[in-house]
């Protein structure tokens, strides 16, 4: 028996598997999983972490609004707002009241439901439609790609606000209809992004390997490649939520959005406008405005944090 055989046998005795494996086992260590790495990178982003905590608190508040809000958001209290003068912030009403004495804190809390619902629904719609169409366009190429992307280009050419107002004049504005409408004007951005990802993903050798195995095309697109495009899609989603929230606020502000008396941050802001001029009731606009700004900022910070964390090129040292 040669020494080489002896070495092989030793390796086999110690581990019970083939020698190459045994030795690999001895010398290699498990690297960190990609998700753990992503998580650690995200945690290094201070602002993103703080923002994520803020958003979490906001979700909980929105979810538990009826129990958390100190008053009924639509309860009118004419004692409080005498002669239609908004009551300024006090201990009982920390954010003051509006011209009919409704508690602004309660309205801000309930308004968060509308903002978040629209943000998520609209984004969800845009992401699903955009991802499916973008993935098909990018993977199939040629005329399929041409057709889908021309439609997207056409829709991009529409002025978005005009489109929304036109639609919302026709249908009754609710969180759902507004979300769908906002989704309709946003899926193209997602589709473009996803198409770009798929243009490179489809040339990856593992896509070719799947084809060579005989995996059906839909499974290659959605089961092989899509998980590899999730990083950018998640980032796009996080960044499109605040955009949808802003759009909803704008619509409500212009009177095309959620109709009073249901509270939304946008229609509260619009309502505040008159009283800011006549009564210097700054609190009526300040708090809803602050919430819009904070929420939008927080989503953007989280999006930035995710972008860095999901980028395989960024490193931890």
């Amino acid at each position, binding site marked *: 028996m*040669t*020494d*080489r055989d*002896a*070495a*092989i046998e030793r*390796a086999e005795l110690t581990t019970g*598997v*083939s*020698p*190459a*494996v045994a*030795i*690999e*086992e*001895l*010398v*290699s*260590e*498990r*690297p960190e*999983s*990609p998700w753990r790495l992503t998580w650690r990178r995200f945690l290094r982003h201070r602002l993103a972490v703080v923002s994520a905590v803020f958003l979490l608190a906001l979700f909980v508040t929105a979810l538990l609004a009826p129990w958390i809000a100190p008053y009924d958001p639509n309860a009118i209290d004419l004692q409080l707002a005498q002669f239609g003068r908004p009551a300024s912030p006090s201990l009982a009403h920390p954010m003051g009241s509006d011209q009919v004495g409704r508690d602004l804190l309660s309205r801000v809390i309930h308004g968060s439901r509308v903002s978040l619902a629209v943000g998520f629904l609209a984004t969800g719609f845009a992401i699903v439609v955009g991802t499916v169409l973008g993935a098909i366009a990018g993977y199939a190429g040629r005329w399929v790609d041409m057709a889908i992307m021309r439609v997207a280009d056409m829709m991009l050419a529409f002025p978005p606000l005009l489109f929304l107002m036109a639609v919302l004049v026709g249908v009754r504005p609710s969180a759902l209809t507004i979300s769908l409408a906002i989704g309709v004007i946003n899926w193209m951005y997602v589709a473009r992004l996803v198409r770009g990802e798929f243009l490179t993903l489809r040339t*990856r*050798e*593992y896509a*070719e*390997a*799947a*084809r*060579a*195995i*005989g*995996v*059906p095309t839909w499974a290659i697109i959605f089961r*092989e490649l899509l*998980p*590899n495009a999730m990083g950018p899609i998640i980032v796009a989603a996080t960044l499109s939520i605040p955009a949808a929230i802003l759009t909803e606020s704008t619509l409500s502000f212009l009177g095309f959005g959620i109709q009073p008396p249901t509270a939304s941050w946008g229609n509260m802001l619009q309502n505040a406008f008159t009283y800011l001029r006549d009564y210097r009731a700054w609190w009526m606009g300040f708090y809803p405005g602050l919430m819009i700004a904070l929420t939008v900022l927080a989503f953007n910070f989280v999006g930035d944090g995710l972008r860095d964390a999901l980028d395989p090129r960024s490193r*931890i*040292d």
Partner: protein
Amino acid sequence: MEPTGPRRDQPLSAPAGGDELLRVEELRTYFFHRGTTVRAVDGISYQLNRGEVLGVVGESGSGKTVSGLSLLRLIDSPPGRIVGGRIWFDGQELLSLTEAEMREIRGNEIAMIFQEPLTSLNPVFTVGDQIVEALVLHRGMTKAQAREEAISLLARVGIPNPAERFKAYPHQLSGGMRQRAMIAMALSCRPKLLIADEPTTALDVSIQAQILELMKELQRDFRMAMIFITHDLGVISEVCDRVNVMYAGRIVEQGTTPQLFTSPRHPYTWGLLDCLPKIDEPRRQRLTPIIGQPPNLARLPSGCTFHPRCPYAWEKCRVEEPPLFRLPEGQTVRCWLYEPSRAEAPVRLIAREEIEVRRVVDHRPLLEVQGLVKHFPITRGILQRKVADVVAVDGIDFTVNRGETLGLVGESGCGKTTTGRLVLRLLEPTAGTIRFDGVDLRSLKGDQLRSFRRRMQIVFQDPFSSLNPRRTVGSIIAQPIEVHRLAQGREVEERVRHILERVGLNPVYANRYPHEFSGGQRQRIGIARAIAANPDFIVLDEPVSALDVSIQAQIINLLQDLQLELGLSYIFIAHDLSVVRAVSDRVAVMYLGKIVELADNAEFYGNPLHPYTKALLSAVPRIDPARRGARQRIILPGDVPSPINPPSGCRFHTRCPYRFTPCDKIEPRLRDIGSGHFVACHLYDPEFAEQAGLAGKAVPATEAVVGSPGQG
């Protein structure tokens, strides 16, 4: 014999006079990552004389590049740092210089060139401007002088139309031209020392031969010392005077080139030499790989770092680290076998298993390809108007018999990969027929084709992009089994475990992700996926090109074993002619989308006929120190022409040393000139025999060099 180990307690010796240019003492460069220390270079010492060429050889990750960068103090810090040692260069100690003084040395006294010149040339400046800048900066020339000098340098490194190319941006040049431009830039300041890090690894053999020739010539003319870093022992044998063999950040053997090849001493060197397929040895069933894989530099094994892979290791090796022993012949070796107190001289085991090729070739064709053509249209503008065609494959015929391996070789861009994809119908052919087991593949549609795919598989070159990073190894291998419903439920898992074991991987790896594996292991996973559905036929597209030589031998053995065991037929695509010799039954050479020669393995290597084949074979660097310089080499001029507008007549006529009258007008057909040896060249066509006889005798018709390199 006396150990020449670490001598840190001795006073610093002044640099020796005479011819010594560089002396490195106990150099250590570490990288610090998240609490671990990667000892990339761990106490290396060597010296180099003026005008001498030192080779540094070792597998990837052995510290070759870092040792080169350390000489220039180009280590990124953090995470890296030179933590110890001395570098004496021309009377100065480099590690004690200030950064400003060091800048004077870099580019001026010591220059470095890299494997991929694109990354070291600035993409936004023209090649000429970059050389001019160096000349103005380091040699104090005026702009006009520098311009003239730059053009003459470009001419000196063999760039045609230097005044024209002066204005080219790096991406506008071919790989070979870029490497020449990089060399011109490195030489612009007449350095005393040139460090070349794998300068020819990214190039095709015919271009590699040109660049090696050029470097040897320049090194002689400029009397420049050179450190030549490479993993290719053939290259070492051709250009170097002395060699350092590196393993895990240390030098394990040092000696002259003839010593290294005629009387290697270290078990690792033995392993390296044994695991290489040799172009001048007939085909064998198995190569002799080095077992295991290179160690993790952050967790080096105890004692001798090579002991987990060393067939000679004994107790002492695991515990104590060997020093460098100096042998009477002047070689130094880091291995306990050479401890002076050991009585018996070490015996090198007969490593190569003399197993004859066992073949079960059935002479009924499994795959028959006729008139296969693939054009890729180049389109412009929004209307996608077709402006030209890339002629990737242009009418090729071949067959693959059952149980046989057809080797497919040729330089980059000649259409090898496209051919492989076409026969699997991963690409739609422009024309031609493909019959697989009698079935016309092009007539299959949709589901029919998909179920046919069970029988034909592919293994890719790049072990990193060929595995889906989001799937576990188990689910990657299970995929073909599930798609073709070959098993259900637990039975799938059972089969996956069995296949993993079969390709030499631990079955517990099934729930790990691809990024947790090394290149060689990933290639095993790719092979496991390919065999999972019991195919008959596999296209192997450069399956070992991305791997280190020791791992390459493991994979080649695995592929050959699987072939015999499962009765597989292969198309083995490669650019390395030695590897192809080791694995193929028959070999086909492609040039610009055409097969120019096809013959049985022994016939092909023993009696190559086509001028292109001859040139390719002669360009392969060989381990043959005795005949170094005496070997006649055919160095082809220029680059492979563009496949967009391939040359008329014989496509090779622009570079062919034997070109004669009909060559640029009439296209030669691939003809059987006897016993299955096919050649497409007018020299072997009876119709042109008379003229060919004249051409054969005449001086080669182009400026091709048929020279005897390496003398001087």
